[in-house]
């Protein structure tokens, strides 16, 4: 599979990581520090096979792991204004952006793909942490809006996988405005009656968390993912206390009621397919006939134990139920 080699190396370059051995064939697990062979790592969905640490996943790999047979179509993202503030810190933002884009001037932190998951059509928007820390500026906001639009047009659920340090400072107030803008995207999906599922990946912080990322109808998180609003350094400088063990990790958020479940990357696709199936196909595929109703006189409902009532929907919602007896 060509995307394995194609995406592993650019990601390392973008992050500025110096490989510990030449030619980037080995990657050191950031958790257990074991050396992992890139091919094996990719085959294991970028999960360390020694310690189960979930490494950050390039957006294209994320889409490939979620869609059926790894097949999906990406959409061309809207052209947006680059460097709206003509921002310059120690370097020009326009130069940073050009370097990150590798010649593709539509590329930014969010990749949007559509395809099928377990046979259900689905739209997935995934963040690339390797692209300027997955930061959200105008382009990322537009991409999410495009994803929401596509979901509505295709009558498909929207799945978003954030991995972002937050707003892109170099776009100033316009990056802050992506918070309400992406929330509008979520509202459009909601109003179309479509599921919006968020998979919180490492890390999800700042303005990304405080907008679309925390509005999922269902919120899943990857093991060990850092998810929070404020950065740990800022919190520590403010409160001058030691932070509790596991603070802002996915499991910690789960314990505090902030996410529905923490899902291992290997189980993620199946979990999402189940959820889409349950939310999109609420009725049984075939008629279900109530055994209990068939065995009794029609309309007689007096002294049954509660558990006997559990089963197919009774009454008008079950057209075959009672008449079958009388016929």
């Amino acid at each position, binding site marked *: 599979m060509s995307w394995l080699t194609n995406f592993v190396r650019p990601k390392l370059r973008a992050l500025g990581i110096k490989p510990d051995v030449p030619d980037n064939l080995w990657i050191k697990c950031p958790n257990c520090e074991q050396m992992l062979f890139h091919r094996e790592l990719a085959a294991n969905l970028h999960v360390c096979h020694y310690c189960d640490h979930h490494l950050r996943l390039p957006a294209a790999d994320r889409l490939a792991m979620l869609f059926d047979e790894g097949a999906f179509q990406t959409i061309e993202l809207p052209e*947006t*204004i680059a*460097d*709206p*503030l*003509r*921002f*310059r*810190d*120690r370097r020009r933002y326009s130069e940073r952006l050009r370097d990150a884009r590798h010649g593709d001037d539509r590329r930014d932190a969010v990749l949007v793909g559509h395809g099928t998951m377990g046979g259900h059509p689905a739209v997935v928007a995934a963040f690339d942490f390797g692209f300027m820390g997955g930061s959200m500026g*105008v382009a990322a*906001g*537009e991409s999410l*809006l495009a994803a929401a639009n596509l979901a509505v047009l295709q009558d498909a659920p929207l799945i978003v996988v954030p991995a972002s340090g937050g*707003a892109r*400072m*170099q*776009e*100033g*107030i*316009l*990056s*802050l*405005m*992506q*918070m*309400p*803008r992406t*929330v*509008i995207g*979520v*509202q459009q999906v909601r109003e179309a009656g479509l599921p919006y599922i968020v998979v919180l990946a490492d890390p999800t912080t*700042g*303005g990304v*968390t*405080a*907008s*679309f*990322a*925390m*509005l999922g109808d269902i919120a899943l998180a990857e093991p060990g993912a850092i*998810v*929070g*609003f*404020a*950065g740990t350094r*800022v*919190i520590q400088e*403010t*409160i001058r*206390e030691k*932070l*509790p063990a596991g*603070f*802002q990790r996915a499991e910690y958020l789960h314990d*505090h*009621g*902030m996410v529905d479940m923490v899902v291992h990357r290997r189980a993620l696709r199946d979990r999402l397919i189940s959820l889409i199936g349950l939310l999109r196909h609420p009725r049984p595929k075939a008629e279900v006939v109530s055994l209990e109703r068939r065995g009794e006189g029609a309309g007689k409902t007096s002294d049954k134990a509660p558990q006997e009532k559990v089963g197919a929907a009774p009454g008008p919602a079950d057209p075959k139920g009672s008449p079958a007896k009388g016929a």
Partner: protein
Amino acid sequence: MRTFLDFEKPVAELEGKIEELRHLSDGGDINIAEEVGRLQTKVDRLLRQTYAKLSPWQKVQVARHADRPHVQQIVSTLIEDFVPLSGDRLYGEDAAVVGGIGRFRGYSVVVVGQEKGSDTEGRVRHNFGMAHPEGYRKARRLMALADQFGLPLLTFVDTPGAYPGIGAEERGQAEAIARCIDASLQLRVPVICSIIGEGGSGGAIAVATGDRILMMEHAIYSVISPEGCASILWRSAERATEAADALRLTAEDLAKLGVIDGIVPEPLGGAHREPAAAIAGLGDAVEAALHEVRSLDGSVLRARRREKFLAMGKTGLS
């Protein structure tokens, strides 16, 4: 006792002289009265010159000035029959967000504002305007109240940002802000937001998605504080002046970017010199903004509010 900012030193010196002269004379000395008059003209000219071209970093200082009118002062001046409302009905009461119901120029309104506090005790009580999740959930509750009774919502933004703490994170600071934005974008009543001092990042936008966004002339509104930006991008908080320039956080720049709809002029020398006049000017601007949208149908308001935010980010600054 007036607090002077660093760049107001020449003004402070002149005003000190005026004070001295006034002390010397008992009012009858014509020469001294003339001299005071001359100095006062000088002060006015100096203030006009200084405040006409404040640098972004100077605006940051003005926006954070302790004597600047805060929400409670604005509410007590502009809102009649004000009834403060408390609590998020989930966990607690957060004094960083003040809110309630009252009458603004004849009409019942719901008010939500961020209060920094005006003295040491007040600053502690209001946590310097940095809300916990409870503050945003209270704001959301009040938004729902406004919607239920068809009352316009007036918000006043003045916060360094949402509070960064353990409890705040555990109780879902990000979720609370996100739901607040979600709720305000859904409202079918007029929403007028005023950035009155410091519009600090996510903590500000939580209550700043309205039909009209007004900004006081010397207020600031930014995705991150200049200090925070400098420490990340320049690796030194000392470079905050440069970061303030780069972030384009002034009312003038935000109007050019189409992020705000109107700039509310401040009295000569900034709102902190004449809070009463500043508040009156703000009241007029809010009333005018409300007048523009009051008669619109709820669903039209909501649709236009969304369109307004969707249209942002198409043009940049040159």
